[in-house]
């Protein structure tokens, strides 16, 4: 049965009507018009739908809305503060770490999650953590370079 869920997204409160098993991804995209979070596979295999829940990467396509009610959710739209890009966003721009960029939101959110929990990851640790995110255009080396750069640049605290 549909129910009301209170969601805290990018510091803003929303109330949505949804089936309890509705995916967070579908709520973000269809009800809240937060389309920066992408659909890529629906089985948690590509990472395009990655968002942060309490600062940690979650695949929103497999996250039932009922499980994140009241928790702090961050999407790609909520990462920049005012006009200032998050260091990971800036590093992706600086390294040209994108082609079609459809995977970029998910890559950035995963990278932010990694750096939230590990301040100076090695390349091997970056690769290990990002293994669940697919880039079909083949920008992997640039993405690793961008994360390395953001890791060096982003000592300040971020969500």
């Amino acid at each position, binding site marked *: 049965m549909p129910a009301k869920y209170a969601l805290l997204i990018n510091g803003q409160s929303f109330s949505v009507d949804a089936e309890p098993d509705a995916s967070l991804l579908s709520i973000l995209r269809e009800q809240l018009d937060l389309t920066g979070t992408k659909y890529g596979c629906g*089985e948690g295999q590509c990472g395009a739908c990655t968002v942060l829940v309490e600062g940690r990467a979650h695949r929103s396509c497999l996250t039932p809305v009922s499980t994140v009610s009241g928790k702090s959710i961050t999407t790609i739209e909520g990462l920049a503060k005012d006009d200032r*890009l998050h260091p990971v966003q800036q590093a992706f721009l600086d390294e040209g770490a994108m082609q079609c960029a459809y995977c970029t939101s998910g890559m950035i959110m995963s990278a932010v999650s990694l750096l939230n929990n590990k301040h100076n990851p090695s390349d091997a640790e970056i690769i290990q953590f990002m293994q669940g*995110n697919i880039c079909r255009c083949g920008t992997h080396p640039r993405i690793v370079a961008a994360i390395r750069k953001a890791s060096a640049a982003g000592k300040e605290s971020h969500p």
Partner: protein
Amino acid sequence: MTRKVDFAAGLEPERYELHSPSSVIFETGRRDFFKFLGAGIFVVCAASKAAGFQESGGGRRNGEDNLPQEIDAWLHIGDKGEITAFTGKVEVGQNIRTSLSQAIAEELHVPLNSIQLIMGDTQLVPFDMGTFGSRTTPVMNLQLRRVSAAARDALIALAAKQWSVDPALLSAADGKILDPRSKRSATYSELVKGQQITQLLPAEDPLIPAAQWKIAGQSVPKVDGRDFVTGKHRYPSDYKVPDMLYGKVVRPPSFGATLLSADTHEAEQMPSVTVVRDGNFLAVAAPSSALAAKAAASIHAEWKSEPQPSNKELFDYLKKNQLPPEERNDNLRYETGNVEPVFSSSVHRLNSTYNINYIAHAPLEPRAALAQWNGDQLTVWTGTQRPFGVRSELATAFHLPEEKVRVLMPDTGSGYGGKHTGDAAIEAARLARTAKRPVKVVWTREEEFTWAYFRPAGVIEISSAVDHDGKIAAWEFHNYNSGTAGFRTYYDIPNQRIEFHPVKSPLRQGSYRGLAATANHFAREVHMDEIAASLQMDPLEFRLKNLKDQRLRAVFEEGGKQFGWNKPGTANHGFGVGGGYEKLGYVATFVEVSLTPATGDIKIERVLTAFDCGAIVNPDGLRNQLIGANIMGLGGAIFEAVEFENGHIVNNLFSKYRVPRFRDVPPMEALLIDRKDLPSVGAGEAPIVGVAPAIANAIFAVTRIRLRTLPMAPLLVSQGFQLS
């Protein structure tokens, strides 16, 4: 001789570029630019026949205005100095929005960010056959440079008239026309104020030579990169309009199945759900994607299926199911000299067969379309490499004149040759017509893996004969099904027979990055390695011995030098090379692999690709494309293959179909050869072709196992090796 023909082939769309359109046909039944853009200068570039593709039936019907029939590009400078260029090319991640803007900015002497590029909107841009075949840089980049140069000269003429001076004395810089003698200057916006000038492109207009480029030729970041890292950019699947429904198609259990019956009662009872059954098309639309999925799942449909081959019997099937001779085309065969006498007298002869599996594009953004009817006017936003092709498909499917259909292509989540057709557009439009509301259809990953089309599978047979001094004397090459792209050899061989054999494909197949060039280069470059091994010659030296083309020699030689080809190898390490000429670009890829004998682990240690595509427009963008093509090439080389049986795809998810991930990517290097003296050509495709043969040859060097099938992993695994 070979080169000349290959050049011509580069201008013609490959058979597969236009193959396998959406087959749905339903049973039922002067752009005013100044009004749109305001005053200013409007420059039109009339297409030259030699510069573009030949018409291939349908599509170009833009005779509804007074403009010339053949137009490639146009550009407008408004009275606020804003510059808007229009092109039918589309952005799918190859970064042409940036590289084309660089070309315009260069010729107009304006900052890059002053340019707006309108791309792929069939109502606003000139006809374009599509974004494929690496044609954007050699053709559209040049056209936009020409219109920009013409606009610059029109501005100079305006200033010259205003100041009563000889236009030859004036110059353009920083968005202004300058008179160096009187020190007068006028901005573009001052000059065009109140003007309404339409200028046809003059036949000859001097362009700035690449050696003098200031904006073109530089590494500049993606012009709208910030919109992508903030999630602001709207891809086709992100589009939304008021009152919109979500569509879901009820798919048959197998390809070509016929719908016998459908119980749609339950779905029809659901609130605000529309059900459409039209021929074999069965679909629903609902206010949310969840409800659409639920409604579709509630439908009980009965289908009639036909038995179909599986991938287990694929290569036999391809050999046995050639199209009859009367359906073949002469240009699918090439012959020079006479191979037979050489083969019968040669002591050094080799015959090998190579197999290529079907692979999937798997663009991360699946096919998506949003369709909206306004009376009998249809507007569709969709991700496609052929907006005008999709317009034609829609016009045909709905029995509409093309003027009633507008297709818009927002910058899309990749294509790789996989988004030439309008399947999702037709589905969304069909649903929207019945629902009388806009409908968006976004394919699921399973749908994308099943109902899109694939890179053709193929069987390639090569026979060769070599003189005792290492010169190839005869070359016979037969390609079954995979295609003609790159099937001609660029090696200097006096006797050749090269033939393409069309086959009734068991799967829907079509274009893919590089088309059949990957398959043909794989077979040819592995065969070259086989000959070299049989002669105990160095594979690079053997290639150079049989190669006259200077640009191709250069990528092999300079790439080999940079790679360290001649340096003594480490124990259990092997080198491999593969290269060629494709889509006007010259490429050689070098690979080093290592083997751990105790475990059988094979590791790709590094990859280097040398590439020459003429004058480089954006070095960083080119490097990004080249490495990207190399990484994409790894997948098809090592592990990607479409598994199918009886009309359905078995590995239809990312959990079943492996694509290259972070751990699969070895260190990669690009060696760019910048030929400022030569025209710029495309780079999205050619760098993919050398990867597979270079890997196969490097693995042979270290294991002595000859890999003649793509992908290579299954055979290696069966021999006790693992590839990492």
